[in-house]
């Protein structure tokens, strides 16, 4: 069982900058270890996902993650597809190849832009909200109260959020990718003179199943990362309202950086 409520930590001032750097490295490694332990416990707790106790909270988190994010994801996805089609199409037109915007938009959206963009939106909206919510609970001693009552915060608070994000991120990614393709089709038709049947034929003919699977796999990994980073940052909150603000900001920054780095690594591993 991972204890969330921790004792305050005090460190002597570092001797020099190298000492400070070394301490930061060690603390980062320790925090990563704690986050991974929490992830392990939350993954084990997924077996209680459909239990009578957990079901209402799990469904609520699906609603918050999925339905409440639909609006912003729809707008961003459709415009991303339109921008992709326009930029690519204007260049391809020079060679008379504007019909190939279909595959360009489809592959870009499935492999990279869909999962990347969806994950960034979820990290900024849902992830930051998780960090702020859990941080406030730490500050107001609600987490300590749960632990004193022998109620595990990981099962009650982390597991439902993990379930929602790891399932909803791939679904939202697929949805965003398809909207992006539609946006690209609209630009192709109205500004590049590419008919919808030609655009779709080109998109479907040259895109591969692997593009879809890799994109969904990335989204699945991003969903887990966003949850664990946000929950860990929230639970690590100290120093009241200022601490909640810091945890929220850190959650977004770490999630963004992790999404970029891990996204690159997955692409590198699966497309070499």
């Amino acid at each position: 069982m991972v204890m969330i409520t921790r004792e305050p930590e005090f460190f002597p001032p570092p001797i020099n900058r190298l000492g400070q750097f070394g301490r930061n490295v060690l603390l980062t490694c320790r925090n990563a270890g704690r986050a991974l332990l929490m992830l392990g416990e939350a993954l084990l707790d997924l077996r209680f996902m459909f239990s009578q106790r957990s079901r209402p909270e799990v469904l609520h988190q699906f609603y918050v993650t999925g339905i409440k994010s639909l609006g912003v994801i729809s707008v961003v996805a459709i415009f991303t597809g339109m921008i992709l089609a326009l930029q690519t199409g204007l260049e391809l037109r020079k060679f008379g190849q504007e019909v190939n915007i279909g595959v360009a938009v489809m592959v870009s959206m499935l492999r990279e832009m869909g999962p990347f963009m969806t994950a960034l939106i979820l990290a900024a909206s849902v992830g930051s909200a998780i960090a702020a919510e859990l941080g406030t609970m730490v500050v107001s001693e609600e987490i300590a109260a749960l632990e004193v009552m022998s109620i595990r915060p990981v099962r009650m608070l982390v597991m439902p959020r993990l379930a929602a994000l790891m399932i909803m991120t791939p679904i939202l990614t697929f949805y965003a990718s398809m909207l992006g393709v539609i946006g690209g089709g609209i630009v192709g038709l109205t500004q590049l003179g590419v008919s919808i049947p030609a655009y779709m034929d080109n998109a479907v003919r040259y895109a591969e199943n692997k593009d879809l699977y890799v994109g969904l796999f990335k989204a699945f990994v991003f969903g887990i990362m966003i949850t664990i980073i946000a929950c860990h940052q929230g639970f690590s909150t100290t120093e009241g309202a200022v601490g909640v603000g810091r945890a929220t900001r850190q959650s977004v920054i770490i999630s963004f950086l992790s999404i970029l780095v891990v996204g690159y690594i997955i692409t590198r591993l699966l497309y070499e």
Partner: protein
Amino acid sequence: MIRFEHVTKYFGERTVLDDVSLDIEPGETFVIVGFSGAGKSVTLKHIIRLLTPDLGRVYIGAEAISEATGRDLELLREQFGVLFQGGALLEWLSVGENVALPLRERTAMTDAEIERRVQEKLKLVNLEGVMDAHPSELSGGMRKRVGLARAIVMNPHIILYDEPTSGLDPVTSRAIDQLIERMRQELNVTSVVVTHDLFSALSIGGRIAMISDGRIIEMAKPADFIKSKNEVVKSFLDAQYITKRGVWERGNHETHE
């Protein structure tokens, strides 16, 4: 029985508890008073193992809670109910759901049994008819009473109160004092109360301990506490207009300048 054996705790280079030893008897209401930052809440957090001593041990009965982990710690904690300073209610749950939370998570009771127990405990803290309200709709005093109902819903042997009257008006504070006394009488629980409200401490305490700079500088029954020769205790009493000439000695709870 709760026993502290030479407990010392450091926060960095600062000693927040310095060789504290004390025994709290079953059924007793033990009050810990002191200035802000003296180490009162730190003492309370050691009892429930939210903090671990750097030196010494804390026992609950024969078990050292300061060394318990995992399932052993869970079992020891089942003996406790804790009223946190702000109530620590979960904001998204209703009053009834907050009070029912330990029962739902820790027992196999049916919905009907849970509802009956919740209503019984809310009645005990004089809060009926607010089952469906949310914590944000409640006053500070009501939040504390809901927190108390949740603390006693599992029928604990020990109740810990962290600043139960802080931030409340005098009338509500006295109502909370009466509730603490009622818990002791009706449930026969051991109570440990941390407060800087001396009026409250003298009203409800079986014994009062004063902590200053991490050390217990006085521990006595209320009538003896106000006669303390310790200068720090005297200044604490004077600061709250309670003197040896007060009528506490005669058992009448009034204050005197």
